[in-house]
């Protein structure tokens, strides 16, 4: 498993957010995306997830352009349906991506809330549920946008263990964060805010 990004460039409107970015991450590796607001961290994660199209360059996973189904993405929103219970939310993800929803709930320490409608969950609990979905999907590449936002200290530590386990089994973690993340031996990538095309 190896992720390679070659000369990736991406516009948002008429602003060049990613400018010929090149890097690679090996199996078991972790990459932290750093930089001020508007530097393009979230854009890069959306590009890697295959949501946003590149305007130049290439992203490959094991030499292949096709990444669908091999990526677990956690954006700013939790993608938790308020009308479904915690277990149903995970069961929906499991039907598409595979995995055991109840085991994932137990790992996240949410088994007591399994049958509660998600609208009753607090913001932190919803985030934990969204993190539990990551472990469910069996995807080697994890893309995390501010994953620990709203989590308490115990949950952050628990999440650190989950990340370590994922990397041990050959997974890759790429995370954008402003909060300290419990992750060891992570490389960092510093992004800078792009220059508007007109100012060049």
């Amino acid at each position, binding site marked *: 498993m190896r992720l390679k990004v070659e000369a990736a460039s991406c516009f948002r409107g008429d602003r060049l957010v990613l400018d010929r970015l090149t890097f690679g991450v090996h199996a078991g590796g972790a990459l932290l995306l750093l930089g001020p607001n508007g530097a393009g961290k979230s854009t890069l994660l*959306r590009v890697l*997830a*295959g*949501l*946003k*199209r590149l305007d130049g360059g290439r992203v490959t996973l094991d030499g292949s352009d096709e990444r*669908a*189904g091999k*990526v*677990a*993405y956690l*954006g*700013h*929103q*939790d*993608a*938790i*349906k308020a*009308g*479904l219970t915690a277990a*149903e939310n995970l069961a*929906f*993800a499991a*039907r*598409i*991506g595979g995995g055991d929803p109840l085991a994932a709930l137990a790992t996240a320490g949410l088994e007591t809330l399994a049958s509660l409608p998600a609208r009753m969950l607090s913001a932190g609990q919803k985030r934990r549920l969204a993190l539990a*979905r990551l472990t469910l*999907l069996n995807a080697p590449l994890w893309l995390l946008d501010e994953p620990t936002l709203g989590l308490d200290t115990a949950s952050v530590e628990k999440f650190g263990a989950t990340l370590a386990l994922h990397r041990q089994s050959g997974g890759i973690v790429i995370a954008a964060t402003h909060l300290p993340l419990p992750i060891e031996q992570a490389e960092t990538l510093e992004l800078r805010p792009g220059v508007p095309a007109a100012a060049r």
Partner: protein
Amino acid sequence: MNGFVATLQRELTLAVRHGGDTLGALLFFFVAATLFPLAIGPGPETLARIAPGVVWVCALLSALLPLDRLFGADFDDGALDQLIVSGTQASLIAAAKALAHWLVTGLPLLLAAAPLAAMLQMKPASLPVLLAGLALGTAVLSLLGTAAAAIVLGARRGSVLLPVLVLPLATPVLIFGTMAADAAATGLTPRPHLLLLGAFLAACLPLCPLAAGAALREAVD
């Protein structure tokens, strides 16, 4: 295909949980159609003459109501991102949504149309034709509506744009649907009109999910 079944099932579960939203379109259908006898007068002949048109127009407008949130909720809470990242074809997601829209809105409208037509003094003989036309027509509306809902996704004031986009496209459906019912009422054969409705459905069935899928990819980009 997993994504299609899972999305459909989730949509139906959510429709049952949010029963109020689901019934909204149906209640609107009843209330809007009830206004016509009040405004035009209860003369049975006038009502019988306009009944198919009233049922069709009200069904058309009611089917528009839930379209705004068809993709809107998933777009806002990130669920659409998750579906696309999971590798589910965007057009399959759209097809599941269209089917869910028909089951949750089109089918109840179809069931409610019969008592409504009776209330409007429509001849019982032409009722089966009206319903056959509506069955095809509501399916077309669900497909067109899904495509339009995907296209306006992320646009400012999308809910205003949506009817402006769907209603002109739906005019052929309205014309052939009402003409079929009129033909049955005057003793002519409704067959050509129903066949044209069927042809319209056959064209929309592959095209609308594809268009909607492309629009969804664009919306998350």
